[in-house]
């Protein structure tokens, strides 16, 4: 089947199968699981993933054709976004065959939900300074500590957990990656209310949580290299918009704003032109990165420039929209006020703007690194977290 046919068939399938609204029973998780199962049966789940583990074994071309077909649909797959975008690809890349066999297919079929457990209250940008401990206990590991900013954890069956297994070596060298059972009695999930008033994230507490050694991913104390794999997939999935809704409902878009603000005012017109210029510049940059990837030129760390620009555009756009709309935008749950309140999220999650600038400087421009001592000092002697 050629790509155009593939895309047409996918579009046709989506038209028939994407639910129009919420299910009558109002259970979005059940709806998502049901949809994922049908997506899998139709051959659209894990399009580029290896066939041996339940994927379709196709190429980026089919993946993009499907994304193009899905552009105007909102797929109810949000609970699976972490699994599909980050933890699943990590297991495919770095897991044992037994782990791939056990975990990948149930993820692709929508039977099991995954979350990612890296960030801690004291370790955000500097996630390698995390303090959650995993200690050997016979064939098991015992985990104690706290994680934060965990999406979909309240629904998750499994989590990909980065924990400290050695405090006598520098911080990057004493971490190990595990798959943790989120239903273990020592796991406590608490919703975390963010500045937008929503609870899309959770805090997770681990109290003597046992993990069998066969659920270790990668070598002991080599968890950082596994985490780097996950974070790479995270950045890619953010820039590709996996599992996120499209921008078509954004009340701060140019199309939405032009209907509600006075465009006869030349100052307003120029502000909207600025929004158009910035949006178009970034859209073309993203398109160019995609074409480079297609041509076999891997853009690497330049994707961080795109993520930084998207975060800045999001902040600019929601700020502009509220200035144009005026006082009504900040009362009675106005959509623009709500958009403004979520805008900082993108500039913080998946690497802050400052971290993105470091990455562009260090890995794209190859500038000299900042001198640092945390790479050589044993973790137990290192200052971490927040200290007065």
């Amino acid at each position, binding site marked *: 089947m050629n790509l155009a046919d593939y895309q047409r068939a996918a579009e046709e399938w989506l038209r028939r199968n994407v639910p129009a609204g919420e299910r009558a029973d109002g259970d979005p998780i059940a709806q998502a699981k049901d949809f994922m199962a049908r997506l899998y049966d139709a051959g659209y789940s894990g399009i580029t993933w290896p066939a041996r583990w339940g994927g379709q074994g196709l190429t980026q071309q089919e993946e993009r054709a499907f994304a193009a077909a899905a552009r105007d649909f909102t797929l109810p797959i949000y609970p699976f976004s972490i699994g599909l975008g980050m933890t699943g690809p990590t297991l495919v890349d770095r897991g044992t065959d037994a782990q791939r066999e056990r975990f990948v297919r149930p993820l692709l079929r929508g039977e099991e939900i995954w979350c990612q457990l890296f960030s801690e209250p004291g370790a955000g940008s500097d996630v390698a300074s995390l303090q959650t401990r995993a200690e050997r206990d016979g064939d098991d590991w015992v985990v104690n500590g706290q994680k934060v900013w965990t999406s979909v954890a309240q629904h998750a069956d499994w989590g990909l957990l980065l924990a400290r297994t050695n405090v006598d070596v520098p911080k990057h060298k004493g971490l190990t990656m595990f798959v943790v059972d989120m239903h273990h009695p020592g796991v406590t999930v608490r919703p975390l209310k963010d500045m937008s008033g929503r609870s899309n994230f959770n805090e997770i507490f681990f109290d003597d949580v046992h993990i069998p050694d066969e659920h270790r991913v990668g070598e002991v104390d080599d968890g950082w290299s596994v985490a780097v794999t996950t974070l790479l997939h995270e950045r890619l999935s953010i820039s590709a918009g996996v599992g996120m809704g499209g921008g078509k409902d954004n009340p701060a878009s140019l199309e939405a704003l032009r209907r509600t603000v006075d465009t006869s005012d030349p100052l307003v017109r120029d502000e909207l032109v600025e929004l158009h210029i910035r949006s178009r510049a970034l859209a073309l*940059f993203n398109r160019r990165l995609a074409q480079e990837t297609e041509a076999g030129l891997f853009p690497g760390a330049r994707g961080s420039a795109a993520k930084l620009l998207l975060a800045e555009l999001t902040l600019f756009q929601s700020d502009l929209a509220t200035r144009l709309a005026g006082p009504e935008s900040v009362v009675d749950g106005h959509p623009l006020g709500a958009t403004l309140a979520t805008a900082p999220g993108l500039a913080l999650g998946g690497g802050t703007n400052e971290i993105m600038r470091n990455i562009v400087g260090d890995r794209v421009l190859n500038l000299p690194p900042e001198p640092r001592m945390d790479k050589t000092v044993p973790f137990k002697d290192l200052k971490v977290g927040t200290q007065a």
Partner: protein
Amino acid sequence: MKLVPSQEQRELRAAVRDFLAAASPTAKARQGYDPEVYARLNGELGLSGLIVPEEYGGAGAGFAELAVALEETGAVLLPGPFLATAFAAVALTRVPDKELLSGIADGRVAATLALDGADLTAADGRVSGTLPRVLSGMEADVLLVSADSALHAVDLAGEGVTRTPLDTLDLTRGQARIELDGAPARTLGDVPAGVSQDIADRLAVALAAEQLGVMRAALDAIVAYAKIRVAFGRYIGSYQGVKHKLADMHCKLEQAESIVRYASWAADEAPDEVPGAAALAQAYVGRACFEVARDHLLLYGGIGYTWEHDAHLYFKRAKTDEVLLGPPRIHRARLADLLEL
């Protein structure tokens, strides 16, 4: 839409870059126009005939190729009438003239285009009026002017032409005041308003390609310096105050390149998209180029403020380019119109 250069376009870039690195490095830019370099650029590389159709002896290439060449000439701040001749060639691809196109293609004729000819009058094969600022007006052999909805060619060495070099901010490329007093002119053809606008749009795209080269070279230069200059015991590029600024400049470069690729693709393949792409190119790339040139100069510290350093050459070319086609607000106003705001 094609945003990644082809293998052939990459080879063209490498050839132009290698030639200019040897024949006209930035260090030579302030010495001004070197006709010998210009002749070799056109003779050995055939650059002046790049977009001239093959039937007139040119290479028949497209805007995507022209953009690649202009990026490289921009990067070394090439003095002389290359951009001006490219502008003229753009107009002549819309209003073809065998003599001029073949002259440009084989490098015999350097031409320029009057960007603002509002006060000109044309009658009985003669043109009169004053053009206050003509790009490369001293170096060009032929001037193209629009008057009475037609395109005319004036021999700049002929009678009725008075040329006065201007003292330009840009030390690397000149402009001239040209007074035409019944100068003999050959009428090349009618220029309906739509064609006139299309030519203006294509000039905007060509200029953006040069600007992309200017900003890339400025960024490359300051990044290289940030890796060798030490302050307080560290390379300055290791400080976040410098590194983050450079990262932001890189982001501008990425977006500018994406826009230039898009706009030159549109000029070749998607005429309907040219007006929006051209206005976007000048509105974004023109500004980004000056900002990057400005910040690159500032990051040098005091040395960047000296006459002997090249930083101000980029700064001044960037500003001159930004306002070359008119005050930049016109591109933003055009976008507003095209968006029907």
